[in-house]
């Protein structure tokens, strides 16, 4: 009995802590959003009138359909552009594929609304490229609207498809392809009938991530939508809008967002239900021998896509270093924008670094033991834990933010306006990252190493600290950095939760966008790019091990 307790006490304790944390700071706030959506204005009686009101309002219906169209189009385009890229990187003799992959993954950690803002600077009504196009006599209105949002999402989210697809193409054993060719299938047919179907589950898993991100993202539509309503933005406006705060309608939009995500999840599951392939390459397929023109074409395509995704960020950096006279860009080098940005205070930068560091530390401390329990102590309980930890992924940052304010703005625990509520939101949202990072690396560590340590007389907990943790260090560090950089560029829950004292860099940029100081916004964007890219460059090798495909 004591042995039984010792064996189950650890996972039970970890499960209890995780359940308590997510129950209080995730389920309870989400329940509050749901509650707000079904209670009358007095907040006492159950009513469906809020739903009736929203769903009979053409404006909100338009927001719903816009959001779905944008997410679906971005997902389709990310797959269309990402899969050929992944195939080229995985199978064609292209030089510098590791650099190419690292650059391709970069947009995932860079703030996507910076890319959107760069599109405005280049292709907006007064954009640099727009001006050049018009001067050349080409009719071009602007990038604003749904097409701009889809462009920004495609360029920043396509790596979600690329990374798992590369892994999938590489995990198909050479013999599978050889068998197809041996049976008479030419190359094209082999690709269509064997390689693509085998990679499909990974491609769809990546596509789901694109869809969810595109649905929940706040910054990109905020920058690019103009008069086009988008769910995540409208929920925010209804909740904190200057006109009237309307938690009931905001709650309805939040529930609609969650419903869309959950529906997407089920669609993906249904598409995959009969396709479960255990592929493990004993012998990875060799690079294809192709004619030089084909190889050059593949190389060109890959670099062009990576370039297209990164050019906006580079453009923002360049623009931030140019002088502005009011809103008018001058072609002269200047650090004036940065001086202007930091004139009042360095506080936003310090806040961003401190909040991201705190969130990364907390998410790692909570996430690593959870990852351990999920991988090493498989049971019905740990499977449930897995679902619970992944669930925050399905809830938009704006919605979680609204829920946290509804839940902790009054009552037994008041947290609004503190740094704590922001860190809590970050940890809840990024916990899937640290748990996945931990479990991915754990899958590579043979459990017999832990058993050997225990067998030699070291108790389970010291064994975990002395054997498992050192071996996991690479994965843990990669996961922590990922949490750090994604928190540093987080906007959707920050914009709901921040208070004056805890203004972050993303908020500073957001505020600059609302004003007219394009130079300050560009400077803030450049600082954000540096804050996210430097840690990634430092641990880039570690990060490459991180597998997004495990989601």
């Amino acid at each position, binding site marked *: 009995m*004591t*042995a*039984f307790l*010792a*064996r189950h006490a650890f996972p039970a304790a970890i499960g209890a802590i995780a359940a308590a944390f997510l129950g209080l700071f995730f389920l309870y706030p989400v329940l509050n959003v749901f509650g707000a959506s079904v209670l009358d204005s007095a907040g006492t009686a159950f009513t469906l009138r809020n739903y009736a009101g929203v769903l009979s309002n053409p404006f909100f219906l338009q927001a719903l359909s816009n959001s779905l169209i944008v997410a679906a189009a971005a997902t389709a385009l990310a797959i269309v552009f990402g899969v050929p890229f992944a195939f080229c990187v995985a199978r064609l003799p292209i030089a510098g594929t590791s650099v190419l992959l690292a650059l391709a993954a970069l947009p995932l950690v860079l703030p996507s609304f910076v890319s959107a803002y760069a599109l405005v600077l280049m292709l907006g009504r007064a954009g640099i490229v727009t001006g050049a196009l018009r001067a050349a006599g080409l009719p071009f209105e602007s990038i604003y609207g749904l097409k701009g949002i889809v462009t920004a999402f495609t360029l920043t989210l396509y790596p979600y498809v690329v990374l798992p697809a590369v892994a999938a193409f590489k995990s198909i054993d050479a013999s599978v392809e050889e068998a197809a060719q041996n049976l008479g299938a030419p190359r094209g047919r082999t690709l269509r009938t064997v390689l693509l179907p085998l990679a499909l589950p990974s491609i769809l898993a990546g596509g789901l991530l694109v869809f969810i991100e595109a649905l929940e993202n706040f910054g990109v539509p905020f920058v690019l939508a103009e008069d086009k309503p988008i769910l995540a933005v409208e929920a925010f406006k209804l909740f904190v809008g200057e006109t009237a705060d309307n938690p009931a309608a905001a709650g309805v939009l939040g529930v609609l967002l969650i419903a869309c995500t959950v529906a997407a999840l089920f669609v993906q599951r249904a598409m995959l239900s009969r396709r479960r392939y255990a592929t493990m390459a004993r012998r990875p397929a060799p690079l294809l021998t192709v004619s030089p023109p084909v190889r050059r074409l593949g190389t060109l395509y890959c670099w062009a896509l990576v370039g297209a995704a990164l050019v906006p960020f580079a453009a923002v950096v360049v623009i931030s270093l140019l002088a502005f006279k009011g809103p008018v860009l001058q072609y002269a080098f200047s650090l004036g924008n940065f001086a202007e940005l930091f004139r009042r205070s360095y506080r936003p930068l310090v806040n961003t670094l401190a909040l991201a560091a705190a969130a990364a530390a907390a998410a790692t401390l909570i996430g690593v033991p959870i990852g351990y329990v999920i991988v090493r102590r498989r049971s019905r309980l740990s499977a449930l834990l897995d679902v619970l930890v992944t669930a925050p992924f399905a809830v938009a940052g704006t919605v979680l933010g609204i829920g946290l304010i509804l839940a902790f703005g009054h009552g037994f625990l008041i947290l609004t306006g503190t740094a704590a509520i922001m860190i809590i939101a970050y940890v809840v949202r990024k916990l899937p990252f640290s748990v996945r990072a931990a479990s991915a690396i754990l899958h590579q560590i*043979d459990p*017999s*190493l832990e*058993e*050997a*340590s*225990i*067998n*030699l*007389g*070291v*108790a*389970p907990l010291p*064994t975990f600290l002395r*054997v498992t943790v*050192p*071996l996991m260090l690479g994965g843990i560090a990669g996961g922590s950095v990922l949490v750090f950089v994604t928190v540093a560029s987080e906007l959707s829950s920050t914009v709901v939760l921040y208070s004056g004292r805890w203004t972050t860099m993303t908020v500073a940029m957001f505020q600059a966008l609302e004003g007219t100081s394009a130079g300050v916004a560009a400077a803030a964007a450049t600082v954000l790019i540096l804050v996210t890219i430097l840690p990634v460059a430092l641990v880039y090798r570690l990060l490459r091990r991180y597998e997004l495909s495990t989601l």
Partner: protein
Amino acid sequence: MTAITIDGVARSFGDVRAVDGVSLAIRDGEFFTLLGPSGCGKTTLLRMVAGFCELDRGSILFGDRRVDTVAPHRRNTGMVFQNYAVFPNLDVGGNVAYGLKARKLAGDEIATRVERALKLVRLDGSARRWPHQLSGGQLQRVAIARAVVIEPDVLLLDEPLSNLDAQLRVEMRGEIRALQRTLGITVIYVTHDQEEALAMSDRIAVMRAGRLEQVDAPRAIYEAPATAFVASFVGATNLLHGVVVRRDGEVADVLVGATTIRARLAGQMSLDRVTLSLRPEALRLIGAGAAPPPGWRVLAGTLEDIEYLGAVTRFVVRLADGRPLAAMALAPPAATGDVAVAYDPARVVVLGDEA
């Protein structure tokens, strides 16, 4: 150095009874092997002794000490894992010292014992090397040194040779056996390789579907198998199902299809339907018309499927009723076509009919 008593242990995973009521008394200093096909429960049983698998019922004792309720890190067993499980973040010396440090021994005591253990597995001078610099055989030695250096009550080996190539496997099994004799340590050894089991063990327990089929010395396992499963799993054999048609004292004639085969039945055996086990090497090809050795019986048939294997040659003799008999000889048979095979009825093993 301890006798081990395993009493009525059982463990189910879902509907599968991995170990289904096993009792064993392993002697002090014995080299004891658990042999069986994959999924027979041998590894589960070993992990029960190490403490990595809980018991549904039963008990395990080292000497007089009951250990199945003791946490695995307090059992003082030395385990060698199938994949070695050498810590990649520690050098060879660090790996071997790991268990001694856990026991909080003094630094110089640890150094002496690590050195002695490495010498024992012929890795002296390798203490500062890293696991990734070692070959499979060397990793295996590190794992063994790490397990024996703590002077465990019992050394547990879980298919330790299965990842090595054939030649090294034969070499290492000799070394492990010699090491065990030097230390006089009790060993439980798990394998699915019957040759390994026969070569190394004092006694073998053959397992099947979570139960013990037979526990005996290697020779008894091979020459006097208790069941048809043991006869066919340990070595190759011809299993023939038949009916006793005539009995004269210990000598019985068994009708197998249309062929009559003579065998010796132990006095107390009174069986009607039996299964006979005829080892291929117990069959001898004789030229047509040549006389068999005294007391041997002859079966006529045709020679088929000659397989030359170097040291021996396998072939099949198809009996007049169409039944194939696998046989083996040192030299390839000179004859072709119609031949006769002789066998010694004393070497025909009679088993109860399981069908």
